[in-house]
């Protein structure tokens, strides 16, 4: 634990904890809408922003927020019009984003190590200014997702019904898209753009193995995200591993443990009560493994 006497370590830990709370709070809406992989695509776009920031000597995080937000808005507009052509449009955006990022980072003076830091996270690069950005935006995401939970739940659960309820469906969808972009970019430091999507989705998938309702799933997923982020940074600091990989592997490890326990509990219940109660088990793994 001595490692956390260093300021940079403490900054990395605090940043990771905020992201560990905020990412699943937003990710649950993406999972509910079966858009579990959208965060990954937006991460690709954010990388172009990182490259542009490094090239222009501006804060890469802030430029990435702008780039990812624009990308997310384009994706949402394509989705809401959406038919089959949207699929290809998304592919163009994603691969264009990552190629542009790699190209721009290469053109800048930054070393190849700094590209790695953005792709997979790095503990030592969180500057005090970065931490302020992470805290402000992370708390804003968290509060928005919690306060607007009924409305966002309604939109993600049944979009047509939400429209007939007079909810500002388009504004809420855009809010979710922008929120995803912001979460991806602030999480770059801790877990990296290639792995952030996991922190949005895996805790939700883990929580819903055992929860019955949406609110309970959200709370449990946030607790799991907090644990994975905190423990992941500690492991990364202690064992000198990539923080993104440590956080994500811990999250996936929790998923496997909880899935096994839940399966065991179901089997046990079936044995003690031979008449099966549930009519239709929801396909719980589908979201992640698709």
């Amino acid at each position: 634990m001595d490692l956390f006497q260093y300021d940079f370590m403490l900054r990395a830990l605090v940043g990771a904890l905020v992201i560990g709370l905020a990412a699943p709070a937003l990710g649950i809406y993406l999972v509910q809408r079966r858009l579990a992989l959208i965060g990954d695509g937006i991460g690709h776009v954010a990388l172009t922003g990182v490259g542009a920031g490094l090239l222009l000597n501006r804060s890469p995080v802030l430029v990435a927020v702008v780039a990812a937000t624009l990308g997310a808005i384009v994706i949402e507009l394509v989705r809401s019009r959406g038919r089959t052509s949207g699929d290809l449009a998304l592919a163009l955006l994603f691969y264009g984003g990552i190629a542009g990022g790699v190209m721009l980072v290469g053109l800048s003076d930054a070393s190849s190590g700094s590209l790695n830091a953005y792709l997979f996270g790095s503990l030592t690069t969180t500057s005090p200014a970065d931490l302020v950005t992470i805290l402000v935006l992370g708390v804003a995401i968290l509060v928005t997702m919690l306060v607007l939970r009924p409305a966002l739940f309604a939109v993600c659960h049944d979009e047509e019904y939400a429209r007939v309820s007079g909810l500002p469906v388009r504004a809420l969808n855009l809010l979710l898209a922008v929120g995803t972009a912001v979460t991806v970019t602030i999480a770059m430091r801790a877990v990296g753009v290639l792995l952030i999507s996991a922190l949005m989705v895996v805790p939700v998938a883990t929580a819903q193995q055992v929860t019955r309702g949406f609110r309970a799933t959200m709370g449990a997923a946030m607790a799991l995200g907090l644990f994975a982020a905190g423990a992941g940074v500690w492991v990364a600091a202690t064992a000198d591993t990539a923080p993104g990989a440590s956080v994500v592997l811990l999250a996936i490890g929790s998923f496997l443990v909880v899935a096994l326990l839940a399966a065991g509990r179901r089997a046990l219940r079936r044995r003690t009560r031979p008449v099966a109660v549930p009519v239709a088990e929801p396909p719980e793994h589908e979201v992640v493994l698709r």
Partner: protein
Amino acid sequence: MTEPVIQVSHAAVGYDGRAVLRDVSLTVTAGEVVAVLGANGSGKSTLIRAVLGLVPLGAGSVALFGTPQRRFRQWHRIGYVPQRLGAGSGVPATVGEVVASGRLARRGVLRPSGRADREAVAEALRAVGLADRAGDPVATLSGGQQQRTLIARALAGRPEVLLLDEPTAGVDAASQEAFAHALRAFRDGGGTVLLVAHELGPLRPLISRAVVVHQGGICHDGAVPEPAGHHAEPGHDHVHPHCDEEPAGLWSM
């Protein structure tokens, strides 16, 4: 008092250049319980979706409570019951959580849920006979119970008019009875109902007027036609002669 709750004038709806509804006019006044009947693919569900603005009109107009549909904002006066639960249910949700969505039209996006909301949700669940299932995940309910959940969601907003899209399709007898009971209570409280149905079952005594849609037009407007031996009502009989009239995707949304 005959204030028009829903007024459809010369409405036409088409998908990909193919006409689904042609020159349809329909007026529903307060207190009426109107059933829209017709075979699969006759356009009856499209009619209800056009009234709600979920499909765009190609021609004609729709007015709700005297306001043109496009400018209508008092959505809390309307309760909509879709054919089935939306596809976006990747995360478990309890019956109570789904029904609570019905309060948003009244409460707005930002105001947190209060005691009036909780009472309305509990009352709506009682009305459809699901009070004891509030904490259960919707996915574990039977099809009929899920349908009753959607009706409770619409009732929770305390609307003045209910629009229901095939509420009894594929629903078990117990749920049909519970549903008829809830609808009767709603009508007795002064509510107006427009429902799309394939067959009426236990709802029949509640219906004050029937509209039969056939091949995109209204071919009957008046008393409920007899179910059998009345082949003069071509769209009504429980057969499926026009199933390929519309692409399947329209119905599954």
